[in-house]
């Protein structure tokens, strides 16, 4: 399970994150606007997920693995 920090300003942003991760086969996706957190469970590597999330056009960084 991976945690990312993503610059999100509205529901459109968090929905976009959820949508691209869902399309990439991610599950158990949690987004939190206030803390700018994105959590996802995926078979993909953190680098692959980072590339996918970057396509949203938002500033995004990898925080680390979480349980």
């Amino acid at each position, binding site marked *: 399970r991976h945690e990312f920090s993503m610059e999100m300003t509205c529901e459109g942003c968090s929905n976009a994150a959820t949508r691209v991760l869902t399309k990439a086969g991610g599950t158990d996706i949690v987004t939190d606007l206030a803390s700018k957190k994105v959590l996802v469970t995926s078979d993909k590597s953190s680098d692959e997920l980072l590339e996918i999330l970057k*396509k949203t056009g938002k500033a995004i960084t990898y925080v680390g693995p979480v349980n």
Partner: protein
Amino acid sequence: VFIEGMTCMSCVRNIEGVISVKPGVKFIKVSLEKKLAYVKFDPSVLTVEAVRQAVDDMGFEASLDQ
């Protein structure tokens, strides 16, 4: 290109910003109200489907018909 999922002007500017720097894109104007993007592009570089795909990859539901 019809776009679902934009909620505010920051979404609009985000899409305009990302798509406008794509090679082959000459002009883009997004209307939040109409849920529509007008895109001018060089057809020898891009197709309308490629533009739709790029918007879709940004996490917005993009389609070529309403």
